[in-house]
């Protein structure tokens, strides 16, 4: 009964962690996951969120065993 959380690039540095886990609770959306995982840090503008490798908005509801990821705008290529 847990979800895993990943932080990448500048968000990894800002939050001081690359990954963590949270106990699963019903009805948590991505914004709540962020708040719980970062001790209520303000989410930077333009933060991108993914659940299980797919982009989602911050109001997407998280299921048990989901992998939630937070990262800044991408700069590949």
């Amino acid at each position, binding site marked *: 009964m847990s979800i895993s959380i990943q932080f*990448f*690039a500048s968000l990894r540095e800002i939050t001081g962690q690359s990954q963590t886990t949270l106990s699963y609770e019903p009805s948590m959306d991505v914004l709540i996951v962020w708040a719980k995982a970062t001790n209520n840090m303000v989410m930077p503008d333009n933060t991108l969120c993914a659940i299980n490798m797919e982009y989602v908005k911050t109001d997407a509801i998280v299921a048990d065993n989901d992998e939630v*990821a937070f*990262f800044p*705008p*991408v*700069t*590949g*290529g």
Partner: protein
Amino acid sequence: MPAHLTNKAFNPWDEIQRYQDGHLQSGHYGATASFVGTMRDFNINESVSHMTLEHYPKMTQHYLDKLCLQCNQQYELDDCLIIHRFGDIYPNEPIVLTVAWSAHRAQAFDACRYLMEELKSNAPFWKKEVTDKGERWVHNDIINNE
């Protein structure tokens, strides 16, 4: 229509040749459009000694696989190919290769560009440049049109 991630330097022209020899039907495609993004030794007027390209491995592979599949169908390609570096990259090394093979040139050109634009907008990679003044994350508004 594969997407390959690699932390080693690669030669894009050798990769195209090898993929073409191994996977494309001789005499079937008439048009091959390719793009190579190469690391420059300067950016925003500053000398860059190298950069580190971080990514989200599982999501990157998933995203690029989906992109290839979708592009292949949308542009009715014979095939397409993406190769993307991660890790430490030095000036003059290729960062990304996109290739599209099709019967006619319009689809090949459009598809090759589509792969690059989508990848630039959505693939979870992040560049950190190392300059004389230290490290810096590259931002979209800085790299602009790169």
